């Protein structure tokens, strides 16, 4: 009870702190709304397809696995944002003699409340969106109300989002020093070892060989299962490899940095390669998927030229629709994740930004550093994951299929869409950066 009372005293929104409280709530709202819509769509598709219900289930599972990373990225960003607000007030509590455990409990409790409020709002938003998104046609009919999750399932999602927020807050606090003199991020750069990278390379090689073995059977089902497995292995590998590759790339850029913006950007990424990865990991997953999808689209293109039964033709159409919906959904999550992370970073560094402005640092230098710190890792990860996917798929599809114009168009189009969306998000957060550098915020 004592912790609850303290939490209320510390966490109740003041006028000045309203924006800081609203931001994570909005982030949780967006996360939950997208999650409820995605799960609703998946649930509706689970029972669609008649004779080919298994095909629909498999493709739905693949789409869901594609959305896991961007969704975790967004959820994690929202949770970290919630956990890092109120720094001064938490420090004051320590100064007044509250033990570290109690202050941590207050921080976690606040993150949980913000997540719960945001998730509940998100569930409401999702239900409002159902009529619009339900118009998307699968199996010859609009999804409609069948994609509306039940009350119990929706409550489950809200609870799950809140739990993820609590978990992330607990993990986030490990990186934070709660001292009476202030709450600050630990100053040591995070480390990324080579062991995960070595494991990742091993998994890619194993997946590639595995795909070759199942691909040799020639059966369509085995080929599709092979695609699914390679996809799952690839996503896992990306998470292991991503931070390591980002660190290597930033290290190379640091050595070459000739301008203030390049130096700031490279150091910022090197300071937290895992954070930089988390921000763009969703885009990497989409880029990886784009190669798989590109190959799939080419297979479908070849297949649709042959005489197909009505049911198969419908499945081919639905797979295409599903691909578009999934890629758009995944990129929306990536854009939200970058937006939330950037907003949090700008607010966290406002004092430093203002001091740089006072020294006469042009706004363009700080803005350029901010953009570079996101875009360069984004390019490295999207291109890197596309290459990883191509390596895994190559034995199954061969170069001819991967290099078909339709495959390449799908791959390049998806990567370009991702980069453009992230650019747009950076552009959207630029006014916040300007305000942070201004003397009269």
């Amino acid at each position: 009870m004592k912790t609850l009372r303290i939490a209320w005293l510390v966490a109740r929104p003041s006028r000045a702190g309203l924006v800081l409280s609203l931001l994570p709530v909005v982030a949780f709202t967006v996360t939950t709304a997208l999650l409820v819509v995605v799960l609703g769509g998946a649930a509706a598709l689970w029972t669609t397809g008649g004779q080919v219900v298994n095909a629909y289930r498999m493709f739905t599972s693949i789409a869901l696995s594609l959305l896991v990373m961007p969704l975790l990225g967004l959820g994690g960003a929202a949770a970290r944002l919630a956990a890092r607000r109120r720094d001064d007030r938490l420090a004051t509590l320590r100064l007044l003699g509250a033990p570290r455990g109690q202050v941590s409990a207050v921080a976690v409790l606040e993150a949980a409340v913000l997540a719960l409020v945001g998730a509940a709002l998100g569930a409401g938003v999702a239900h409002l969106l159902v009529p619009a998104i339900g118009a998307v046609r699968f199996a010859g009919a609009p999804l409609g109300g069948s994609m509306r999750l039940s009350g119990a399932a929706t409550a489950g999602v809200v609870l799950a989002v809140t739990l993820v927020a609590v978990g992330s807050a607990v993990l986030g606090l490990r990186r934070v020093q709660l001292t009476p003199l202030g709450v600050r991020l630990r100053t040591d750069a995070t480390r990324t070892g080579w062991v995960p990278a070595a494991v990742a390379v091993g998994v890619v090689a194993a997946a590639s060989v595995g795909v070759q073995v199942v691909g040799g059977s020639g059966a369509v089902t085995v080929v599709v299962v092979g695609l699914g497995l390679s996809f799952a292995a690839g996503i896992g590998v990306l998470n292991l490899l991503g931070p390591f590759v980002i660190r290597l790339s930033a290290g190379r850029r640091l050595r070459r940095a000739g301008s203030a913006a390049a130096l700031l950007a490279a150091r910022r990424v090197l300071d937290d390669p895992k954070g930089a990865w988390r921000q763009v990991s969703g885009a990497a997953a989409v880029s990886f998927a784009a190669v798989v999808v590109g190959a799939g689209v080419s297979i479908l293109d070849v297949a649709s030229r042959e005489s197909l039964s009505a049911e198969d033709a419908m499945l081919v159409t639905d797979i295409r629709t599903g691909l578009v919906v999934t890629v758009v959904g995944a990129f929306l999550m990536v854009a939200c994740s970058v937006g939330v992370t950037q907003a949090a970073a700008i607010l966290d560094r406002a004092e430093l930004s203002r001091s740089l402005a006072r020294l006469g640092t042009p706004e363009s230098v700080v803005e350029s550093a901010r953009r570079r710190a996101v875009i360069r890792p984004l390019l490295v990860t999207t291109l890197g994951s596309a290459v990883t996917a191509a390596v895994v798929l190559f034995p199954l599809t061969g170069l001819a299929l991967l290099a078909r114009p339709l495959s390449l168009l799908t791959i390049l189009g998806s990567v370009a869409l991702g980069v453009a969306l992230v650019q747009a998000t950076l552009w959207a957060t630029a006014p916040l950066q300007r305000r942070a550098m201004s003397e009269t915020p």
Partner: protein
Amino acid sequence: MTPEHSPPPEHTRGRPGAAAVVTADGLVKRYGLTTALAGASLAVRPGDSVAIMGASGSGKTTLLHCLAGIATPDEGVVHYGGPDGDVEVTALSDARRSALRRSQFGFVFQEGLLVPELTAVENVALALMVGGTARGEAERLAAGWLAHLGLAGMEQRRIGQLSGGQAQRVAIARALVTGAPLIFADEPTGALDSHTSADVMGALLGATTATGRTLVLVTHDATVAARCARTVHMVDGVVAADRSASPSPSPYTQPSAPPTVSPSAPPTAPPTTSQSGREDGR
């Protein structure tokens, strides 16, 4: 208070006969219903060290911000007598004031406000790189200044790996590396213990006024103010008292040949003198 309560700007001290390097005349600055400056005037001569003191809310930081072109007053003018002649700071655009701060002024803040992910040498070099100096040259000059301020061997340390006093010396190096003739410091020792504070003030004075630069600092600490040649007291947004004092003897050892960095022409040789400042451990 009204503008006429402030001493006229002609009351300049510092180098006798020299024209003021920075002059504020009748500055008024309001933040909503609060009047931070109510007609403050001040003139600072080249080579002077001026401590601005006063109670919280007396307007001392706002005066410093207006003098440095960080804030623009609602009324009154600020002139800067730089190497390129007289500039009316208050008439400049935001971008021009930014460029002026970059090339002509150096700043030291209470918490240092250094970029945490950069190393010490990169933090100092950044000030030059923003102005267009190549990285290699910027880091060479930065390392020279760090050595000059007793931080040799700590160039590659991140800011979190330095003590408060060491970090503040990095901030001083950053303020000086561009060759700025006028240094502004806002509570530069506010976050330090008295021992480290004396040490940092010694380094600051030794690297500024002792080398012909001008120092304007805001402080609450009478001991810090006593180290300056002149103390200005602010009350309710105006300069209420202005007196010169004999600076206390400094524990800082004056370097025989201070680094010479000119804002218009960066030096070809880095600072070569090293100063054995006390290491203030954390």
